């Protein structure tokens, strides 16, 4: 085999995002074949990209937090709670002020998560699991269990359009925001001092501290950022759907974690990338639309996400080393 080609293949297989890339290629081919090419049509791709944009914005925050060796299981409920609160406030104070106020609330949720985890010295898994139930409960309290619709007088406003309502060339604006967030936070992660500290804190907290890095400050910032981005995703979703229901964001915490893990982020921290998590998001989001298109009942979706999660992990832990050995010997 030509040496340059072999080196390129080796480099590709060595990527942590290898499993997610293979997964996207495989599932796209699989779904395209079984839907007679319908899967690749613009309207289907546009509907997938709405989910990619909304879930993806949340995933960016989750990815950063997971690289720092923490996790936030309350993101789905935060997403729902902020969305519900936003609809309630828009009717009272208008879109812009409502957005500002719910962002403050989202930041406060992140601050609280950070406070309890970092100062209370409790595992983030448990603290944010508690948050998952608390904010879901608040969603039920605010809506009374009913669907709430967006006040009609604000539906056509520029701010609502900009924050998730507009479509550009048939695609929802949230996908553009998602791409923007991926670029910005990839730069932050790989090209800034703060990003270097995120990897260090996630990889070896003792070493990071010994080099003068404050792990509490790094992680606390990420808890706040993660909740903020979940809130942003919640607002974007509400602006697109023009209504909210109590189950808004249910299971999204698991979808976000699955997207990160499939995208090559280690649960042990210190390893991963935003773009890997973004590919993981595309993979997870594609499944729902594809299954619906193939006529499968919606409840198969979670089963399929589980299968993809396990397959993604196995590709990274078993198939990737095997391929590296085979190509390395060739």
């Amino acid at each position, binding site marked *: 085999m030509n040496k340059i080609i072999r080196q390129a293949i080796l480099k590709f297989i060595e990527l942590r995002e290898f499993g997610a890339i293979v997964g996207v290629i495989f599932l796209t081919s699989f779904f395209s074949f079984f839907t007679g090419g319908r899967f690749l049509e613009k309207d289907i791709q546009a509907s997938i990209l709405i989910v990619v944009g909304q879930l993806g914005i949340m995933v960016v925050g989750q990815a950063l937090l997971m690289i720092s060796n923490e996790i936030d299981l309350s993101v789905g409920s935060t997403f729902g709670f902020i969305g519900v609160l936003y609809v309630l406030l828009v009717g009272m104070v208008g879109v812009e002020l409502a957005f500002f106020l719910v962002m403050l609330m989202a930041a406060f949720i992140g601050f609280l998560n950070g406070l309890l985890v970092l100062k209370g010295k409790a595992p983030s898994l448990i603290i944010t699991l508690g948050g998952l139930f608390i904010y879901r409960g608040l969603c039920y309290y605010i809506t009374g269990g009913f669907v709430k619709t967006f006040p009609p007088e604000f539906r056509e406003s520029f701010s609502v359009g900009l924050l998730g309502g507009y479509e550009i060339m048939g695609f929802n604006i949230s996908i553009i925001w998602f791409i923007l967030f991926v670029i910005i936070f990839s*730069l932050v992660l790989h*090209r*800034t*001092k703060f*990003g*270097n500290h995120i*990897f*260090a804190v996630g*990889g*070896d907290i*003792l*070493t*990071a501290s*010994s*080099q*003068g*890095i404050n792990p509490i400050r790094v992680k606390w910032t990420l808890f706040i950022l993660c909740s903020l981005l979940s809130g942003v995703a919640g607002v974007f979703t509400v602006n697109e759907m023009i209504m909210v229901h109590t189950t808004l964001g249910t299971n999204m915490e698991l979808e976000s974690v699955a997207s990160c893990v499939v995208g090559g982020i*280690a649960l042990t921290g*210190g*390893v991963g990338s935003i773009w890997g998590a973004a590919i993981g998001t595309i993979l997870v989001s594609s499944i729902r639309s594809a299954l619906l298109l193939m006529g499968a009942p919606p409840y198969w979706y979670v089963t399929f996400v589980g299968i993809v999660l396990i397959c993604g992990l196995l590709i990274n832990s078993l198939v990737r080393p095997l391929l590296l050995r085979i190509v390395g010997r060739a």
Partner: protein
Amino acid sequence: MEKITKYFGSIQALKDVDFHVHEGEHVGLVGDNGAGKSTLIRILSGVYKQDKGKLYIDGKEQKDFSASKARELGILTVHQGFGLVDCMSAARNLFLGEEPIKKIGFFKFLDLDKMKKTTENILREIGISSQITPDSLVATMSGGERQSLKIGRAIFRKARLIILDEPTIGLSIRESEKVRTVVRELKEKGIATIYISHNIDEVYDVSDRIVVLDAGTVIGEFKKEEVSVEEIKNLIRGKKVGR
């Protein structure tokens, strides 16, 4: 360090310890487990504060001494167990906490070119094989290479005194020798060291002077030419050194 005393609860870890290091001098610090070596170097590196006694650097008494103050004054510690993040590259580890910045407009980015060039020079200076590049993950480096990289980082950060806490524990004979070579070369650069190890032969090899601690007190202090390895071992075992 003058008359340093340190208690942990009712246990006295150090009792009136006098300890000094001259500029560029290599001092070996030995003693059995619980002798007080770690406590002493933690006070010197600003991690612990002494209960009694005075700490002087360049003849100046240090009253509000801390880990960051120690680093600022050029006192750096190379630990055995930690000090490098395995999943990060050599370059990113070398600059961890002191990353160079390049301004592009309003934004501040890492100066990756500078990080890589400097790391490349340091890797070669401390004799790490050319297979290890600034982009190599620390996880792919051998134990000896990791220790050398930590020492290289201390040199780069303008250390005046490097405290080496069991730097060769768990390393092969060849790797230990490599690390000791790097330590010996520090002498030429005028950097002082405190070398702590249970391997007395090793301490003897790299030190100009050897200090023996036992139960929190200094029980012996010798210039290398005044004492043999066997005599130091005997002293630690509880036998007197005959002169």
